[in-house]
């Protein structure tokens, strides 16, 4: 099995966000919201890191 860097990072974000959401909040609504927040932060971080590396490479 091979994954691109991006798909590996997105899959990682999905699984980690599910666990963070469930374990770090109490109510179902808060869990969903926190899970989505974590996912957005993970994927946003991937894009930010990608652009930083692009700038460093120039």
């Amino acid at each position, binding site marked *: *099995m*091979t*994954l691109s*860097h991006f798909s*590996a990072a997105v*899959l*990682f974000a*999905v*699984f*980690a966000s*599910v*666990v*963070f959401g*469930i*374990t770090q909040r*109490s*109510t179902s609504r808060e869990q969903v919201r926190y899970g989505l927040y974590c996912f957005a932060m993970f994927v946003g971080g991937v894009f930010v890191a990608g652009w930083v590396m692009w700038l460093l490479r120039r």
Partner: protein
Amino acid sequence: MANTSTTKNGVAAGTAAWSAMSALAPALGWLIPGAGHLVQKRYVRGLLLMVSIVAMFVIGLLLQGHVYQPNGGDILDILGFVGDVGAGGLYILAQVMNWGQGAISHATADYGTKYLIVAGLLNFISMADAYHIAIGKKP
């Protein structure tokens, strides 16, 4: 405590049950990811945790990630082992079946190694959550 009753020799029955679950849930959760929640009737949470952690571990193996051994020697290998061993039964199965012992031959195999470690670390968090539910700290 509302559900505590005192037995003949003065031991609180409710406290005894609470203690048993507070030990059982994390132990079961370590052995089978998500089982610590399932045994406490948190079925949706337990299944989501199980699917996430098992999928992460399996993808890590499919990416040809490295499973660390207990006797690594190097400090980074020991830390990798601590992460891996969090996956409990999955780690034991990987050791028995001799999975994850090949040389890392391509870039994404390193992702596989990280997936395996993080699956174990997430299971540690899941175990702590199961414990908090068992002691009544979390609903």
